C-alpha cells in the first residue's frame, strides 16, 4: 500500500435549495485501502460520492489525482480516473440483459457503423462476471435476477470499467450473510489488486472489521478521520450523532408473554413457502430470520393477507384471518413493509395524509373527513415518535430515511393494532433512529401487542427478540427459544448444510 493518496477531494461544498449538503469537506483515498465513510442519513455521504463520480457538480472544492489537480465535470471525467460507484438504488435496466447492462453507455461498435457488437459485449460481460465468481449467462434479462445477483452485476459493471476507485453505498443492506461473506472476500481480493474502495455503511461491525480507515460525516461536515484500531463503536456513534447514543441497545425486562395472539398453521404459498407453523403471544417480540429470499417476507405478506395462500390457516386471537389486507387492518394487524418508498409511503403526499391513512375509519367513523382533526391526530403521532418535521403538511418525500420509517410506523398508531409485523424496520436507517425504533417496539409489547420482526441483521434479532424462527428455502428450519437465540445458531439453521 503506497502512502501518497490515489485520489483526493479538498474543501468540497455543495448546496441544494434549502439544504447545505456538503460544507468544506476534504477526503482522500489510497490505492489498495478500504476507506469507510460513516454518518447518519442526510449527513452527506451519498452527496459526497455523487460529487466524486461526477453525478453532481461541487459548488466549491478541488480534485487531485495522484497529486495533480484535475477537474470532474461529469461522469465521463470520473470514469477517466477509474472512479465507479455502486449505488443503493441499482442502476440496472430490467428488460435489458446482464451484458447490455454492464456495458450500458460503453457499447462496443460493430464493423457495420451505427450498430453494436453484441457478441463481443456478451463475451466481455462473461469475463467480468467470472472475475467476481458469478456464473450466470450474461444474456439473462436483469429483471429475472434477485437483489443480491443484481448487486453482483453492479459490481461487475464497475470492475469492467477498469475501476481503480470503487465506491460502495451500503452494499450489504440487501445481502444475506453468505452473500455478504462473498462480497467481503471479493473486496479483499480487489484490495490485493490495488483497487481503492470507499465503503459507506451503517453497520459498525463491518466498518470496524473491514475498514483500513474511517471518516465520519455529520450535517455535511467532516467530523473525524481515524483508524479502526484507535476507536470503538460507541465513539463512532457519538461522532456520527453528535450526542452519546446507546447504540448497543439492550432490551429492558419484558412482561411474561400473555396468551397467543397469532397462530399460523401449515401455511403454504405456491412456490414461495410451505408448511409454515408459528405462534406469537401478546407482549413478545418474535424474530423471523433466514437468508434473503428464504421466504420471510412472503410469509409476512401472507399473514397480513396481502398475498393468496394455497393451504393452511391464520388465526388472530382464535379468529381466522388473512382474507385480505383490508380485513387484516380492520382486525388490528399492522404490516411495516420492507420497502418504505415503494410499499409504505404515498411519497407525493404530506406527512399528515400518510399518518392518518390507516386510521381513517377509526378517526372518522362517520366517514366525514375533518382536516383539522386529521392534523391534530397527525401532530400527536409526530410528537410521540419525535418525527423531525416542522409541519404535518410537509411532503413526506423531504424527510430523511429514519423519519420516513417513523411515519410508516406512525400510520399504525391510530389504528391501535394488536399484532405488528416489522419487515426490516432498520434497513438504511442510522444508529440514532434505530435505537428509537427499538424503544418503540418495546413500548408496543408493553401495551400487550405481539410483534413479528424480520431482520437480516442477526445481532438485532438476538438483542430484541424473545424467540425467533429461522427460515430456509421456504420452510421453517427451526425455532430458537430465548436462551438458544445466538447469531451462531441463526446462521447454522439458516444456511444449507
Amino acid at each position, binding site marked *: 500500500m503506497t502512502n501518497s493518496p490515489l485520489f483526493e477531494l479538498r474543501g468540497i461544498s455543495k448546496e441544494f435549495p434549502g439544504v447545505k449538503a456538503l460544507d468544506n469537506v476534504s477526503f482522500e483515498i489510497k490505492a489498495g485501502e478500504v476507506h469507510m465513510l460513516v454518518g447518519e442519513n442526510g449527513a452527506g455521504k451519498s452527496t459526497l460520492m455523487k460529487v466524486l*463520480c*461526477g*453525478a453532481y457538480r461541487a459548488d466549491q472544492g478541488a480534485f487531485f489525482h495522484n497529486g495533480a489537480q484535475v477537474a470532474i465535470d*461529469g*461522469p*465521463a471525467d470520473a*470514469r477517466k480516473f477509474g472512479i465507479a*460507484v455502486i*449505488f443503493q*438504488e*441499482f*442502476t*440496472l*435496466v*430490467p*428488460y*435489458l*440483459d446482464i451484458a*447490455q*447492462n454492464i456495458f*450500458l*453507455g*460503453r*457499447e462496443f461498435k*460493430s464493423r457495420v457503423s*451505427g*450498430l*453494436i457488437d*453484441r457478441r463481443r459485449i456478451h463475451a466481455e460481460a462473461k469475463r467480468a462476471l467470472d472475475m467476481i465468481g458469478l456464473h*450466470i*449467462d450474461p*444474456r*439473462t*434479462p436483469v*429483471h*429475472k435476477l434477485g437483489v443480491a445477483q443484481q448487486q453482483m452485476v453492479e459490481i461487475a459493471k464497475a470492475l469492467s470499467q477498469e475501476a481503480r476507485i470503487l465506491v460502495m453505498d451500503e452494499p450489504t443492506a440487501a445481502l444475506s450473510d453468505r452473500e455478504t461473506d462473498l462480497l467481503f472476500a471479493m473486496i479483499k481480493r480487489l484490495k490485493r489488486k490495488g483497487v481503492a474502495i470507499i465503503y459507506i455503511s451503517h453497520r459498525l461491525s463491518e466498518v470496524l472489521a473491514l475498514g483500513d480507515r474511517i471518516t465520519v460525516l455529520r450535517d455535511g461536515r467532516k467530523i473525524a478521520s481515524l483508524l479502526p484500531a484507535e476507536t470503538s463503536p460507541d465513539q463512532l456513534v457519538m461522532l456520527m450523532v453528535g450526542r452519546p447514543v446507546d447504540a448497543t441497545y439492550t432490551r429492558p425486562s419484558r412482561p411474561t408473554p400473555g396468551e397467543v395472539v397469532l397462530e399460523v398453521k401449515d401455511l403454504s404459498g405456491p412456490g414461495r413457502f410451505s408448511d409454515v407453523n408459528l405462534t406469537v403471544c401478546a407482549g413478545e417480540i418474535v424474530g423471523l430470520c433466514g437468508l434473503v429470499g428464504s421466504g420471510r417476507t412472503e410469509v409476512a405478506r401472507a399473514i397480513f393477507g396481502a398475498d393468496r395462500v394455497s393451504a393452511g390457516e391464520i388465526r388472530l386471537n382464535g379468529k381466522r384471518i388473512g382474507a385480505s389486507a383490508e380485513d387484516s387492518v380492520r382486525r388490528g394487524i399492522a404490516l411495516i413493509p420492507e420497502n418504505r418508498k415503494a410499499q409504505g409511503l404515498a411519497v407525493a403526499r404530506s406527512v399528515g395524509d400518510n399518518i392518518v391513512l390507516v386510521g381513517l375509519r377509526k378517526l372518522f367513523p362517520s366517514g366525514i373527513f375533518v382536516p383539522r382533526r386529521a392534523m391534530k391526530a397527525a401532530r400527536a403521532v409526530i410528537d410521540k415518535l419525535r418525527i423531525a418535521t416542522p409541519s404535518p403538511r410537509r411532503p413526506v418525500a423531504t424527510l430523511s430515511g429514519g423519519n420516513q420509517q417513523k411515519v410508516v410506523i406512525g400510520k399504525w398508531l391510530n389504528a391501535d393494532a394488536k399484532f405488528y409485523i416489522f419487515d426490516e424496520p432498520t434497513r438504511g436507517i442510522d444508529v440514532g433512529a434505530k435505537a428509537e425504533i427499538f424503544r418503540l417496539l418495546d413500548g408496543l409489547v408493553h401495551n400487550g401487542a405481539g410483534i413479528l420482526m424480520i431482520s437480516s441483521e442477526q445481532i438485532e434479532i438476538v438483542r430484541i427478540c424473545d424467540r425467533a424462527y429461522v427460515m430456509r428455502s421456504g420452510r421453517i428450519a427451526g425455532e430458537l427459544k430465548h436462551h438458544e437465540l445466538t447469531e451462531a445458531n441463526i446462521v447454522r439453521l439458516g444456511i444449507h448444510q
Partner: protein
Amino acid sequence: MSTHALVQFKLARVPGVAFALITLCIVFALTSPGFATAINIANVLTQSTILLLLALPMTLIIMTEGLDLSIGAVLTFSSIVLAIVAISTGSAVLGLFAALAVGLCFGTLNGVLVARLDIPPFITTLGTLGIAQGLSLVVTDGQSVVGIPRSIETIYSGTVVGIPLPIILAALAYALTHALLYQTRFGTYVFALGGNREALRVAGISMRGMLIRVYAFGGLMAGFAALLMTARLNSAHPTAGIGMEFDAIAAIAVGGTSFERGNGWLFGTLLGVITVGVLRNGLNLLAVPSSAQVACVGALVIVALFIDGLRGEQ
C-alpha cells in the same frame, strides 16, 4: 437459464396476440372462402402497412413510458403538405421531403416539450394533436387536396416481383426499427428510458436528447406514413388520419407491449397490427354489420389483454 431463458421470456408474451391472430385466421378461413386467397392476404397486409408505420415508433415511445396522441394528426398534416408541395412543384420527391420535414418538426416539438419542459407526454401530444389537426383544417379549409401527380399513386398500388410495394416499404421500416431497437445504442437507451433513467444518467448519457430523438423518430415515421396515405387516396384530406393514434396504441397493447418499465416487444406490435387488420377484413368479407364490427374491435382489445393478464399471473 441461458438463451433458453431469453426465448421463454419472449414467448411468455406471444399468446395473447398470437392466439387471437391464429384463431381469427382459422375462423375466417373456415367461414369465408375469399379469405385465404393470395389476393386477399396481400390486400390485408397492404391495408395494415400505414397503421404499422405508426405503431412501430409508437412502440418505442410507449417503452419510454411515453405516448404520442398526435401521430395521427401529424400524419394528416404531413400528407396535406406533401400533396400541396407535390402539386405546386410537380415533384413527388420534394413533396415527400416536405412531409418528412413536417413530421420531424412535430416529433421534435413533442420531444422538446416532454423532455425539456417536463410536460407529461399524454398532455403534450394531446396539445400538438389539436395544433396539427387545426393546421390541417385551416390550410385546406376542410377541402380535400387533389391533383397530385399520378406518379405518387404507384407507391401504393405498384408491385415488385408480385409483392405490393407498400408491404416492402413496411417490411423495410420494420427491419429498420428492429435494428434500431435491438442492434444500436439508441435502442438500448430506449429500454433504459423506460426501465431505469438513473442508469442512463450515471452512464453519462443525456436522456433528454434520447427522449427527443424517440419522439422525433415518431414524427418522421408519421411523415413517411403520410406518403403511403397520400398515395393510397391519391389526395390528401384533413380527416384522413383522425383516430389512427388510438388504433396504433390498441394494436400495440394487443401486441403485448406493457406500459411500464420499458417492457416492449416490437414483433408483438407487428402481430397486433396484422391481427386488427385481419379482424376488420374478415368481418367485411363475412359482411358482418358495421355495428357488430365496431363491437368486435373492442372485444379483441379486451380479450387479448385479458389473456396476457392471465399469463402474467401464472
